Structure formats: C-alpha cells, structure tokens
C-alpha cells in the first residue's frame, strides 16, 4: 500500500518540522495514540488503538524518526503488533516553503498483516488514507492553524 499526498500549512517550515519531531505533539496527532515513551534519541514506544468505528485494535509498537534534514525532510517509521495483526510503515516527509506558509509532501508506504490484512483488505487502504489525513488535520489544529488537505 502506497500513498502520496500533499498538505498545506500556514506555518513556516521550521515550525512544522519542529512540531513533527516533538513526541508530545506527535502523540496528539496520531489518532488513537494512548501512550508514547521515549526509548532513545528519536525513538519511542507507543500504544495505539486504531481502526474504524467498532473495529478497533490495540497495538503496541515503536515509532522512530530518522534521515532528519531540518527543516526540509525526515522519515518516520512506525511498527506495531496486536490482536488483529501487525502494521508496519514508513513515511517520507518533505516540507517546502509555499507563500507565507509551507507545503508538506508525505509519501508513505505501509504493510499490514494478520487478520486485518486478510479480512479487511478492501478497507485497509482507505483507512490508511483517512488516518494520514486525520494526522495532518490534527497537526494543523495543534499549530493553531487551519489546514486544507490538498489533492
């Protein structure tokens, strides 16, 4: 599963970058992130409750940030496992200035396995897309700004 989307922000790239590598903000932006503990430089353990509607699973996993090139780009790695299966993904984030604000390009690649992949295949991609949009919408909120998911 591969997704590519751009999001527009009113904040400058530096602000955006700083927020994105701040675990406190990350936790608030990841829908269903119940807990996040720092385990090392740019790596965290996370408890996630993700899914849709009544079909939510609990996952325990790791979040890691690398390839940091402030304020332009970094790569976010997430992996987790839980009752309904496992998830693994990485997102390459690039931030470009645009007008007074910035534009963020997110190219993500995800894999799911176990029950969710096997019975929910038709929904997985849509859920992934939704979660990603939701993440950046919340990020926008966190930055006390409005963001418009771009096409």
């Amino acid at each position, binding site marked *: 599963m591969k997704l590519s989307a751009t999001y527009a922000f009113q904040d400058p790239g530096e602000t955006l970058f700083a927020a994105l590598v701040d675990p406190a903000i990350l936790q608030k932006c990841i829908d269903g992130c119940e807990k996040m503990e720092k385990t090392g430089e740019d790596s965290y353990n996370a408890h996630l409750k993700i899914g849709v509607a009544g079909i939510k699973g609990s996952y325990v996993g790791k979040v890691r940030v690398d390839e940091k090139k402030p304020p332009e780009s970094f790569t976010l790695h997430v992996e987790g496992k839980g009752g309904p299966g496992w998830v693994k993904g990485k997102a390459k984030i690039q931030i470009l200035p645009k007008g007074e604000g910035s534009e963020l390009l997110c190219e993500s690649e995800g894999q799911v396995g*176990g029950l969710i992949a*096997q019975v929910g295949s038709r929904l997985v991609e849509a859920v992934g897309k939704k979660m990603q949009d939701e993440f950046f919408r919340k990020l926008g909120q966190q930055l006390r700004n409005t963001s418009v998911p771009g096409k």
Partner: protein
Amino acid sequence: MYLTEELAAKGKVARGYVGRAMKRVEDPRLIKGIASYVDDLKIPGMLYAQFVRSPHAHAEIKSILTDGAKVLPGLVGIFTGADLNDKLGTIPCASPISGGRSPQHTVLAGKRVYFVGHPVAVVVAETRAIARDAVDLVDVDYEPLPAVMDPEKALQEDSALTHPELGTNVAFIWKLPAGDVDAAFKEADKVFKLRTVQPRVTPMAIEPRGCVASWHAGESSLTLWTSTQVPHLVRTLLPDLIRIPENKLRIVTPEVGGGFGSKLNLYAEEVVISHLAMRLERPVKWIEGRRENAATTIHGRDQVAESEIAIRNDGTVLAIRSKIIADVGSYCQLLTPAIPTLTGLMLCGCYKLKAVLAEVTGVHTNKMSTDAYRGAGRPEATYMIERIMDLVAGELGMDQVQVRLKNMPQPTEFPFNTATGLTYDSGNYQAALAKAQDLAEWPKLLQERETARKEGRLFGIGLSTYVEICALGPSKIMAAGGWEWGCVRIEISGKVTVITGATPHGQGQETSFAQIAADWLGIPMEDIVVLRGDTATAHFGRDTYGSRATALGGTAIVMSIEKIIEKAKKLAAALLNSKPEEIEFENGKFFVKGKLEETIEWGRLASEAYIAKNLPPGLEPGLEASSFFEPSNCTFPFGTHIVAVDVERDTGHVNILKYVAVDDCGKQVNPLLVEGQVQGGITQSLGTALMERTVYDESGQLLTGEFMDYAIPRAPDIPEYILGSTETPSPSNPLGVKGVGEAGTIGATPAIANAVIDALSPLGIRHLDLPFTPERVWRAMKEKEARS
C-alpha cells in the same frame, strides 16, 4: 491377475443392480442430521486444542511468551516447537523426486515460519472457548524476513530464499523427454508459442479438517478419528512420527464432509493432536476454522507453462516442448511433486503426438503447499492441450472440431500408446465428440453464433475433448502401493458384510459397492451392509482419490466373492452329494448342473459353513474372503464438453448459455451417482474458469481466507447441464469401469476457456489467463479497443 475378461462377462447379473440409477443407502442418516462427522464426537474428559499461527509469510521467531495465557482457568497446556519437534517425526513427502531439495517439515515451526498460518504453538484447554481465548494471549515476537511470493522471480539469482538453508528455491526438476522432439520440430511447417497460467486455487471442502485422538492407556494404543480421505495412508505413515507401533494405532474416518484432494495427506495437526492425547492421557479434539482451512490445508494447481508447439499445415500437431514452473509452496506435502509430473505425462491429451518434452521445475515459495486438488495435474495438461488445439485451428483457419478429429487415434488403435509412454486402455473419442455435438445441436449453435456476431454480441462456442488417467494405479508407479483391498463375509445368518479399503467421502460406495456385491452374490441389496473408514474393520486399503475407488475397490470385492463362490461350491457339493466341478452358481443359488429342482442358497450354506457339522474334509469353516486387487494398468476415461457463452461488453461478465457434457467412464455402476459426480466436477471447474483464485499479497498475506473473499460457485451460477454418456468398457478390470470423480473437473475448464476466448475472438483476443473474472475480461477488451 486373478480375474479375467471372461469373468467380467459372467458378471451379468442376476438382479441387475449394476447399471441402475439407485438412490443411496447412506442418505437417510445424512438427511436426518443423525450422521456423525468428526466434530460431532464427544468423549468424556475430552480437551480442545487450538493452534497459534504465524501472521507472517516469512519471519524468524525471536521469542514465544506463554505466561499471559497460562493464567487462564481451564487452560491445560501450551506447547511450542521447542516442546514437540524433537519428540516427533517430520511430515513425509511420499513422492520425492531424485535430486530434489526440501527442508525438514517439522510439525510446528522451529526457528522460522514459512507461510501465513504456519503453526507456531498449540494450546490445550478444558473448553473450546478457553482454548480460543488462550491463543490471543500467546505472545510471539517475530522478525519479518523477505517473503518469496512469485515462483518465476524466485528462480532469479538475486531472489530472496524461502528456505535460506537450502541455498535455492528449486524444490525439484523433473524431465520427461519422450520421442524424438528435435526431429518432430524439424518436420514442422509452423511452430508457435503459448504461455498458460493455472492459478492457485483453494479446495474449500465445506467441512473443514479436524481430528480427535484418544489414548487407551491400558492397551497402550491410540485411536484417531480424522476427517481424511486416506485413513490407511495415515495409519501407514503416522506410527513413525508419534513413535508407536502400527498395530497400536487405529484410524477412524466417520462421515467426511468433502475432500477434493485436500484431505489426501498427513497433516501436522493430526500428528500433534495424536501426540497430545498420548502425552496428556486425555482425549483431545481439534477442529479447523474456515480461515485456517483456507490458509493451512493444501492448495491446488499454480503452474505456469511456456510451451512451443510444432504443427503441420494440415492441422497435425507433431510435438510439444513445455517448461512448467510449479509453485509448490513452503513444503512438499504428501504428493506435491507428483502432481505436476502428471501434467507432463498427460500432455498429449487424446491426440497422436509424436514427441513431448516436459520439464517441470518445482519452486518453493512462502505460501501454503500445493498438492492434489480434484483432477490433480490432469486439468493443467488438458487445459494446455485443449487451448493448443483451438490455437492451431485459429492459426490454420481450421474448424475447432476438424483439428481435433485430425489428431485423434481411431477406435481400432486401442490400446493406444502415447508419446509420453502411457497406454490408453480403450476409447472411442470420435463417438463421444459426435454425441456431444448432437446434444448441443451443433449446426444450430454455429448459426446462433453467426447471428449473434452480426448483432455485435460476443457469443462464443468452446469445446474440449479430454482424456484423463484414473484408477491409480499399478503399484510400480505409485508411491505407497496402488492396489485396493476388499473383504466379503457371508454372516452365519446369510446376511452379507462387505468391507472396503476404498474409504469414501461422499462418493456413495456404500450404495455402489452393495450394488456390485448384490449382483455377484445374487442376493437383494438390502441384505448387504458395506463397512468402510475404520482400520480396525477395513484392515487394508489405499483409499479414495484419483477416481480409483470403483475400478479398484469394486474389483477387490468381486474377487473376494469369486473366492467365496469357489469355496461355497465345495460345500454345496458335499451337501448335494456331488462334486465341486459339477456345481453351478446362478442368481444366488447353487445346484448340480442340470438339476435346478434342488438348490441351496446362501443362508443355508452360511449356517452350514459356520456350524461346521457337515463340512467336507479339508474345508475350513466360515464363508469369508478378502482380496488385494493389483491393477495391470490405469484407466483412461474421456469425453467431450461443449459450452456456449456470451460476454457482456460493458462489464466483462460471462454468461454460460449452454453446457453439454458427454463423458465415458466405462461401465457405469450407478448412473445417478455418475451424474452427480459429473455435475459436481463441472461446477468446481466452472469455479476455476470464472471466479476462483487464491490471492496472496506481495508480502505473503492471504487475502482469500474466507468465503467472503474466495468465491466458489453458488446455485444461481450454474446452467442447466445437458449430460450424455458413451460406455467404452475398460479392459483393465472385470467391472469394465474407468472412474468418474474428476472427469467434470478436467473436461470443463478448457471448454469454458475456449468458449470465452472464442467469444472475444472478433476483438482480436487470442488468449487470456484464468480465471475469467469480469475485470480481467473487461481489461482485455479495453486494451484491444485502445490499440485499434
């Protein structure tokens, strides 16, 4: 051989049960819901097992934590590979190919998992629900590894490895050079190429697998009830694995809810459950769920073939060179390597090819193993040769019927030796074809096609003239003996017990074998009971697969009856004050030649035989005989299927408008059962042609693990079948039967494929891969439109 054709002629039959459409004696218990399948068994003290299975296609197991599960009240135990593998043998492959390389197949995963569903641990609990709860609490830590999913890419040098320790993904290479292939290609006017793909399919018997094992400590013996096609093979193979003597093991198959080859195996679960019953000294039950069934019961087909075909301008097909890649999955199960070799052997179809070169490469991938699925190797071969016939017709502008007639042997040429070294026992392929054309109203069908095409409709006619190999087979070509066993006992009362080693799973042997025995004994069918499926009563057997039961199992019963008759004649002679050679037997009566006024029937003979007061000197008491029938050859059923379809232009949906099948399975014991087998086989094949496809994603997740995602035909998908038959007796057994369990499955897919491609041919489409799902057909049409 004990029996002769002359004896077959004698089987002309008093009451004429054989050949009659009769309803089944096994049905009342099944339609009342009082029959017993494995999951219906309940034994006091019985425990329930569930397997913890890998969610990864390929991964290293870093740790297995069981503490969380162990606290559940009612949990009895959790066992991992570390606990079991060194105490148990490995799962055998009965048909290895020399030079082949496959890993040791331990019952539970060791350090690695090799496919989604690979069993990693087993939990045992007082109830099913507790066992299920425990599975969620076993915490396995995996380190995922690259999964090998595409068998063709798996052969490239830079490919990841399914089993790194083997150093290769090649499981085996098998070559069949038959005839002078190079000379045949030199002789050719034309050579063309064809790539065919047989998708992976899932058998999906409606009853999943399952077993119950019970340890009898007092006797140190084990009984295993299991939903299998092959209790006798299980009894042969299992003792070594669980380390008990064969004579301490009893296998029982109660009712079996469908097999189609998927229960023709020894599975890891059967071994583990047997072991646990011994280890825990309590009965243990395991019943497979549907998702487990789809992921961890064998799959079928999955072959890609690149073929070159040498032809003459007059339509003669001279030779085929074929490179076949068979995706065998993670392990070689019981018959895995044997399946694609059958494809090679049957490549000639019902045609007089001069030479064949088949090279089969079995490739390991991180998927469930493939093995025998209904038809097992022959549908693949038939699909290839029948597609080839249509392509030859297209290439040369010939009629699809003419090109087939051009290449068939004449009825007078039988027994016919094929280029691949088989001897087709008997046949009249032209007669079956002609009859099918009659039933299909061929000229009218051609007319309809012409009219439809003028109107711009995509109407197609397809046919396949197939031959298959059944009644497997002489022991010299079989992995574990190809004979079949039967026993007949005239009880003291004169009632008759027939015991067969050809264990049925829906085919109706209790009826068809009673028909055979009743005719040969000259008694009413109601006086006969057929026992099967318990190694304590059916001592020997090679079971039911490969359409072998009637030809081989039926013959073993006939042989036993002949032995009993011989003995009964000696007894009758004593009772009638005559000599055995003067005693005649007809319609269940023994009498002195010419003296019909004084006869002795089975009832009196039986009581004399067992009470044993008047036995002639030297004659043993009792009236019972058993026999092993060792066939001299396989049988080769054949037939013609004709299909008319139309294809919806805007959706790619295929409608079957007409379906005609004429099958020749030799003599028919019960035409009603034959019809049922044919309809069922065609329907399964229709599934393969139009909808069925086992899908793994790139990382090895199984996406067709439920009936929600794996489509099998439903009632509205089925056309009204028009069925006919011809009867060419097989000389290979006294019954003259050939076998019919797989005929429909073998004949139908190519006929449907040819019809769909014929329908699409006005658009310039020459070939398309199975299955013809709407999207695949729609895409093919769209690509052609885009190009034109």
